[in-house]
Every structure is written in C-alpha cells, then in structure tokens.
C-alpha cells in the first residue's frame, strides 16, 4: 500500500477531488470559526491510503473537552488507516470487532505515554495551566469513523465510535438504510481508557448496489442532507455557510464514488524536483493544470505525505526528525488524473527528534501560509535557481506583536518627525 495521506490540521483544505484507481475521492477540511480566527489547529483529522485494489480512510473528531483532542484524532486516524490498509479482509463482524478492540487497547498504551509527555507551557496563566493539567490527566479523546473498501472482494468494512456519520448511496443517488448502525456521541476512544462507553461499532457488507459512500463529521449538523448531491463549489459554499453560524464546528468530509474515472485526458505532467543546494528543500517548475502537489516522504522510520498548494511557490522545505528522507513529488488536480511520482530526491534533516506527539505524528509543518509570506522578489529568486536561505522559509510563527508602549513611542516619534518636516518646508521652501 502507498503512504498514508493526511490533511494538515493547521490550515483549511477546500473541497478537492482526486482519483485513486477506480474511485473518485472528494474531501474537505475546514476548521471551526474560532480556530480559524485564533490560528488554532482543527480538532478533526482526515487520512487515507489507497491503490487500485483497496482504499482505507479515517475521519476522526477530536473531543475538544479533552486534552488537545486534535492529538488523539491524528494519532488514532493514522493508526486506523495504517492498520486497515494491511488488514486481510475480515470474515465476519465479530472477528473484525475483536481485532479492532485489541488494536484500540494496544494504541491506548502507546498514546498514554505520549500524552503524558505533552508539555504545558509554563508561561500560561495559572488558571489555564490548571485547566490543561486537569484535562491532560483525563487524556486526549477522539471519535472516529474508518473504513476499508476492498475492490477485489467487492466489500466494505467500516468501524466507528461516536457520532461521525457514514452514508451509502445507490447509483440513483438514493440513500441506503443502515438499520443496525448506532451513532452514539458518548462513544469515543481515549488515550487514557481506550474504547469508552461500549465496544466499537462495525459494519461488514458487500458493495453490490452501492455507488457512493460519504463519511462526515457532526459539524454538518442539520445541513447534512445537502451532502446527498454536491459539487466542489456547492460543498465550499455549504462550508462557508456553516462556518458563519454561532455553533460553527470543524468540518470534515470524505466522499468516495466507486467505479469513477477522471475526464479522459492525459494525466498531469510529472514534476521534476531539484534539491535546493545547501538546504533540506526541494523546488520544481510549476506543472500546467496542477492545483496542488503532494510530496511523498519515506525514511527508515515512517512514510508520510505533505500537500503543497499550486498557487504557492512550488517549493518544499523538509522539517522533520533527524534522518535521510527519500522524496518524490506528484502533481494533482480536481479534474485530471494525477501525475506519476517524480524521480526520488534525497533530503537530509538535521533536526533533533522531539518528544512532542504533534511532531511525531506530523513531522512536517511547512504551512503554505509560511511560503505565502515570502516577498515576490524572494519567490522569483528561487524560481531562477538562486538558493533561498532556510531562515527565509521558516516563517511558521508570526512575529510577536510589538508592545503597545513601543508602538505608541514610534507613533509619537513619527508624528513629531512629520511635524518637523512640515515646519521645515514652510520655513525654508516658501
């Protein structure tokens, strides 16, 4: 199976469509308005992994009342997809449930230590530190919905805890009933307790008669009927509408159309990444028609991907635990088949590994927004082959706001300078 593709929780991903084997995969990830305004991470998480034979995916909804629910969501989402991708298709529901329960218990042991080691900044206000310490004691929690589509077996294996929804549609767009399915808000996975409030729900079924399936988080609320039929544009419009509501929550959706194919056009051209001399970075010429790029990374320890928007500079800066990474770049579009993977380029990261679970789970943090902040002159410099200093790329953290007093002093100084200049003008020039 190929690498696990994950969507960045620090930014929003508008509706996108890509083709994996015979399926069209549409997804969207929007953080709640609160998180967007404050620049915080989304608590939801989307991951998938597929080829011509199988597709595994997970949507997780981190519990914001728990300690950094985004961490549990990401940890669990990656684990579920990795596990499902390699799982022999289950023979029956009980076998599947038992295997899943064993995994959830095993992952709990791993996550508990990681969450306990998650630092709480000492400079936070005492009340907030107390609240976070209390939350950390209770662990990080997430609801989840994960599925494996096996094209060879023509069957679906799905599992979930919580109130994320899985919906199936026939080829006429009619929703198929799932009478046995129960979506219970109280159910979730916890880094402290493992599966909480009951055993995980499972579903095994043949895909005969199923043309499409949609998984989404509860953020769609009463508007989830709008997901029966949608276009990329209508999906983005719906997300905008929901984000404007007072109850705005994270939105995540993953939709799979079976037996689909892109327009019969040639796949996108394959990018030709080059190592930026002296930096753990790649750059490549833009590919016509590409709407985003995916960098596939592989080290001794793990494989993962990072998406880079085509509207940004076609550049990728590796920021990951120390090691050698084999990198390939792929061009993608909503309307065309993706390119082949580029030739491999090796990058070496000299960063020390961090104990932080966030770093372990998602070692790459090059936000498109960071590149967006580059001045046009810097971007064009890299395009013509002049190496860019890493320090110019590392703009992940906005500069701290200047103290009010300093801004006041500089404003007064500017006003005095302007006054002096005006007086000078009237005295000397007239």
């Amino acid at each position, binding site marked *: 199976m190929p690498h696990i593709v994950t969507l960045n929780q620090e930014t929003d991903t508008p509706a996108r469509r890509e083709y994996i084997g015979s399926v069209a995969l549409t997804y969207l990830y929007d953080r709640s308005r*609160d998180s967007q305004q404050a620049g915080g*991470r989304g608590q939801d998480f989307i991951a998938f992994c597929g080829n011509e034979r199988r597709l595994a995916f997970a949507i997780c909804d981190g519990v914001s*009342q728990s300690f950094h629910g985004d961490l549990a969501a990401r940890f669990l989402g990656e684990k579920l997809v990795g596990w499902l991708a390699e799982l022999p298709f289950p023979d029956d529901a009980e076998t599947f449930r038992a295997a899943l329960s064993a995994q959830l218990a095993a992952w709990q042991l791993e996550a508990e230590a990681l969450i306990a080691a998650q630092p709480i900044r000492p400079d936070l206000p005492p009340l*907030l530190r107390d609240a*976070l310490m209390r939350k950390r004691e209770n662990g990080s929690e997430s609801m989840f919905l994960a599925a494996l589509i096996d094209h060879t077996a023509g069957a679906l294996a799905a599992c979930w805890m919580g109130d994320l929804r899985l919906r199936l549609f026939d080829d006429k767009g009619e929703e198929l009933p799932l009478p046995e399915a129960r979506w219970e808000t109280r159910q979730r996975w916890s880094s402290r307790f493992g599966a909480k409030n009951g055993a995980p729900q499972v579903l095994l079924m043949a895909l005969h008669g199923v043309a499409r399936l949609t998984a989404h988080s509860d953020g769609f609320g009463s508007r989830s009927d709008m997901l029966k039929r949608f276009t990329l544009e209508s999906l983005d419009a719906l997300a905008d509408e929901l984000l404007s509501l007072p*109850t705005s929550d994270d939105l995540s959706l993953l939709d799979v159309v079976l037996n689909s194919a892109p327009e019969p056009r040639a796949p996108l051209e394959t990018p030709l990444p080059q190592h930026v001399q002296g930096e753990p970075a790649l750059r490549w010429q833009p590919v016509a028609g590409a709407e985003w790029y995916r960098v596939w990374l592989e080290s001794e320890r793990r494989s993962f991907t990072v998406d880079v928007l085509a509207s940004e500079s076609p550049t990728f800066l590796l920021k990951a635990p120390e090691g050698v990474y084999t990198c390939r770049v792929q061009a993608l579009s909503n309307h065309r088949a993706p390119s082949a993977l580029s030739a491999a380029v090796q990058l070496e990261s000299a960063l020390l590994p961090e104990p932080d679970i966030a770093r372990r789970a998602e070692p790459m943090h090059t936000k498109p927004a960071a590149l967006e902040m580059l001045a046009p002159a810097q971007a064009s410099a890299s395009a013509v082959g002049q190496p860019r200093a890493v320090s110019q790329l590392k703009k992940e953290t906005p500069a701290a706001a200047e103290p009010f007093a300093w801004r006041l002093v500089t404003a007064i100084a500017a006003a005095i300078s302007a006054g002096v200049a005006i007086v000078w003008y009237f005295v000397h020039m007239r």
Partner: protein
Amino acid sequence: MPYTAVATSTTPVLIIYLLDISGSMGQMLGDKRRIEIVSDALQEIATEMVARSTKGELVAPRYRLAIYAYESQVHDVLGGIRTIDQFVRDGIPEFSPRGGTNTAAAFLAAENLLAQELPYIQAHPAPLICHMTDGEYQGDDPTPIVQRIMQMGTQDGNVLVENIFISDKILKQPIEDVYSWQGVLSEADLANDYARTLLRMSSPIPESYRLEMQEFGYNLQAGAPMLFPAQTRELIRMAFTMSGATPVA
C-alpha cells in the same frame, strides 16, 4: 423554552455570581473558613469553565462572568462583565469577610445588569444567577426582586436562579452521598423558614443542565430546584458545578 441554546464564542452565556462576604463567612466549616471554601469552589468552577472553553491552548469566550460580592454593600468585583478568557488572565479574586447581609441589594444589582444586557443577548443561552450565602438576609426581602428576575429571559428561557446555602441546618436529613443525592424534593425536606424562602427563589433545573450534571457524576432528579444545602466542601463544589453546566458547543 427548553434551555438548549449552547454557549459559543458568539453566543456566550452570562453567569452572575452573587457572593455573600458578610462577617459570618469568616466562620470555620471543617478546617477552613467558609469564605476560603467559596474561593476554592470558585477556582474549581472557573477551571472547569476554562477547560470547557479550551481547544488546545485557545480559550474561547463561551462564558461571560460578573461577580458581585455583598455584605451591607454590593461590590462589583470584576468591574463589569468579563469573558472567561479575560478572567483567565486576571485570576480568581480574593474576598475578605465583613459587614452585614444585604441580599436584596445584590439581587437588585443583578437585575439592573440583566436589564442592560438582555436586549443584546436574546439568541444566547438563558443567563444564570448563582447566589451563595450562609445566613438570612438583613434589610429588605429579596424575594420580589428575584421573582422579577425569574420573569426576565432570552429566547432560550427565563433567567435561572441558583441558591447555595452554606449551612448544616437547612435539611432535616443530612446528605450521605453527594453523587446519589437527588436534590430537594419537597418543602418538607427543609428544616427552616429561610430555606423555604430560598426554595421559592430557586429555578427548577432544566433538563439540559441535569444531563450535564450527570456527566460530572451527579444524579439530580428531573425538575429539582436549583437549591443546594452546602453542608460540606463536596456539596459546595457540586453547587458551583451547576453554575457552569450550560451546554457548550
């Protein structure tokens, strides 16, 4: 009016604490002064509110707080309404007991605040007044004011009034287990007239609050009054937990 509106950063809930800091609050309850136990409980519920408002390290302003400490006079402790994220930065105020118990003046201050605020928070959860005292009022009877307040409200429901009575003389039977206690079920459970007065000044617990309290392990009966005989530290903690039990998104 189902009390189902959720507290969000755009529709925060207003919670007004009326805290009796009269001289008697300096008396001991167990190994601590009553006023210290109230401060601890306030710290506890503020921490809980912060926890319920926090995603990662971000504190969403889902709660708006006003604190009136009263004795013979009323003191606006926070200098107006503060959102929970502002409250986080300022920390828990300290109280020192003194003076009498002018309960009516405290409720009057709350009524004035509500009259100013309600036109602007009609789409928000119903506000809640959490009144904590350890003795009978002096001066005017607060009951008529409280009854007026209980007729005010938002689209979500009338203003909720919770009373916490720090006393071991309020119930005929002591509460043995705070988690299995079902609440004051009838006037006959109460041991004195002032407790019955407080009962009439207490709103019934909305179902949404009762369910939130269940999440904390408390098993209050549907429709029980928001009247808490705070005989022990555990009961005070439970009573303050109720004040932060507005459903959140």
